[in-house]
């Protein structure tokens, strides 16, 4: 039963004065999907969400909800509901009144209303809190009231603007799991705004990475992490090392760049590159390995002679900073797969080593 898309944005622009807060954004969000908008603060995530909710009207482009044009429909006529970052619970109403508000506006009969409010509170495990006021509840509980208040209306799409931003680390992790399982149960499309890449990776079916009002890449968490299509995404999601150079060789999905030092490095190209073009090699610290110079086998990996500079033991991993030349150091993470107290057998600062990496583990990116 493919009804098309839950939400469709086509070339949506939003200008505040001269500035384009959202700049020609095109997105298709599937029914039942947990979709995240991820990007640094000020990149236009909230503005995009607010246009979907109806609090802002686009300066250009088209916005559809289940195929119905919605760009100019006022918020109270849209089949979407929002969970606000600060929850925006009505302080002069009890929890039950807060949750009932949307149903009252729709003139749901009293008997049905009570049952639905109760069911919504049960769903977020706040059954005993109906008569409390928001100020008498903890941050996590308020968060769940906000969820119940939105979900009780059975929206076609639920919009969440950094809903976990105000919670402490532990509660945040719990709520991530709870939100995810809730979404599974209710089967509603969630559009989730966050600037926390780990949160987006953990929870989302798909992610749109935004910067400066533009969508740079849309993909599953794996695609976004393993195959970023541009430098910004590679940098913003997870950790990486960048090495600049020029493309000197190019063959279907791989390319080789040459650094100013004359090193030749080969990697995968998510997007085609041209010979002679400036490009950057992106190498995730956990995808490289350090070997003794004598162990280097040039035939199946690219190699870089380096010197070990600093070693940081963090339990699960050991993080090694190696020096490539006067200007540049690289990070390499090795998993501590062996249980031993003997750190002498390990790398020592000043030691010469070779960094090896199969071409499929490195990416050649432009811009």
């Amino acid at each position, binding site marked *: 039963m493919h009804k098309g898309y839950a939400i469709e944005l086509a070339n949506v622009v939003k200008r505040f004065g001269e500035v384009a807060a959202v700049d020609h954004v095109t997105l298709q969000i599937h029914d039942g999907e947990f979709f995240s908008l991820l990007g640094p603060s000020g990149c236009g995530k909230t503005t995009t969400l607010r246009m979907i*909710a109806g*609090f802002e009207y686009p300066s250009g482009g088209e916005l559809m909800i289940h195929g119905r044009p919605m760009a100019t429909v006022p918020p109270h006529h849209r089949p979407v509901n929002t969970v606000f970052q600060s929850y*925006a619970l009505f*302080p002069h109403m009890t929890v039950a009144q807060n949750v009932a508000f949307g149903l009252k*506006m729709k003139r749901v009969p009293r008997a049905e209303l009570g049952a639905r409010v109760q069911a919504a509170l049960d769903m977020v495990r706040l059954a005993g809190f109906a008569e409390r006021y928001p100020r008498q509840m903890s941050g996590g509980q308020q968060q769940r009231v906000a969820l119940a208040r939105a979900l009780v209306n059975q929206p076609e799409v639920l919009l969440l603007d950094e809903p976990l931003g105000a919670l402490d680390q532990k509660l945040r992790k719990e709520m991530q799991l709870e939100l995810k399982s809730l979404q599974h149960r209710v089967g509603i499309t969630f559009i989730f705004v966050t600037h926390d890449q780990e949160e987006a990776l953990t929870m989302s079916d798909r992610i749109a990475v935004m910067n400066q009002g533009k969508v740079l890449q849309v993909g599953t968490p794996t695609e976004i992490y393993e195959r970023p299509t541009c430098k910004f995404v590679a940098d913003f999601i997870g950790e990486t090392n960048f090495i600049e150079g020029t493309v000197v060789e190019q063959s279907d999905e791989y390319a080789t760049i040459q650094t100013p030092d004359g090193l030749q490095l080969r990697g995968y190209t998510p997007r085609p590159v041209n010979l002679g073009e400036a490009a950057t090699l992106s190498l995730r610290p956990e995808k490289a390995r350090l070997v003794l110079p004598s162990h280097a086998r040039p035939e199946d990996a690219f190699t870089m002679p380096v010197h070990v500079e600093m070693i940081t033991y963090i339990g699960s991993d050991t993080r090694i900073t190696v020096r490539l030349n006067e200007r540049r150091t690289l990070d390499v993470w090795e998993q501590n797969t062996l249980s031993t107290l003997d750190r002498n057998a390990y790398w020592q600062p000043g030691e010469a080593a070779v960094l090896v990496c199969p071409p499929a583990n490195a990416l050649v990116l432009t811009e």
Partner: protein
Amino acid sequence: MIEAQPQNKRAQRAASWWPRFNSGALTWGRLTLTLHAFLMYLFLYGPIFVLVVFSFTRDEFGVRWTGFTLEWYVRMFANDRLMGAAGNTLYVAFVSTVVSTIFGTLLALAMERHRFRGRTGVDAVIYLPVVIPEIAMAVSLLAFSALVLEFIRVVTGEVVRRSLVTVIIGHIAFSISFVTIVVRASLKHFDRRLEEAARDLGANSWQTFWRITFPMILPGILGGALLAFTLSLDNFIISLFLSGPGTSLLPVEVYNKVRRAVTPEINAISTLMLAVSITLVVLSQLVQRRR
């Protein structure tokens, strides 16, 4: 070294009570400051206390204590002219409060919710009635009303005099500003996302206003209304200039009596007016600090 700790503790406890910038024992500076504050409150409330006490004295000059009586209150309530004036005063205060509260609240919403060209100018017009001397406003309204009444006489041939209507118009003119200022303060803390949340949940803008915005700023509106009511009850200068023949207001009556001499009857009226004002101020504090 051994004694340091208990001394410190005492100093800390004292610090929450006494000026902090010289934490430690009681100093002359601190003592002076406290004594000064005590004297200032005595200064502010001493005369009021004296006034209240001397409204119960038997002394017919009302300036010395010669025994307790309620006679002056009885006389006051029996005085038709005074009671008429009190009725007029309440009526003026009621009407001007209703009108100025509505207008002032709308103005406050406009000023806090919108950015527009000329906003600074509007701001100035709102604040001006608060800062200029009341007599300037009073004489200008007097001159203006004379002009308008003369115009009415020429056009319709009917002689219209200044009355409670002119007083009410004047009271509204200065009350609007006070209401606006109080309501604006309550709108400053208002989280507009609450309104968006209501819209999001299916309320139109009218429902959003009455179910969310209005209940939230109601304390501010009530506070503004109480202030307007009090200011109107107490207003003397504008009332003096704008009331017409035969329409007397309580503060004007008191003024006319007071200019002659101190009498225990005036003490009684004054005490009553004080009691009303203080009740209203306490009420307004309760209303605005609720929640």
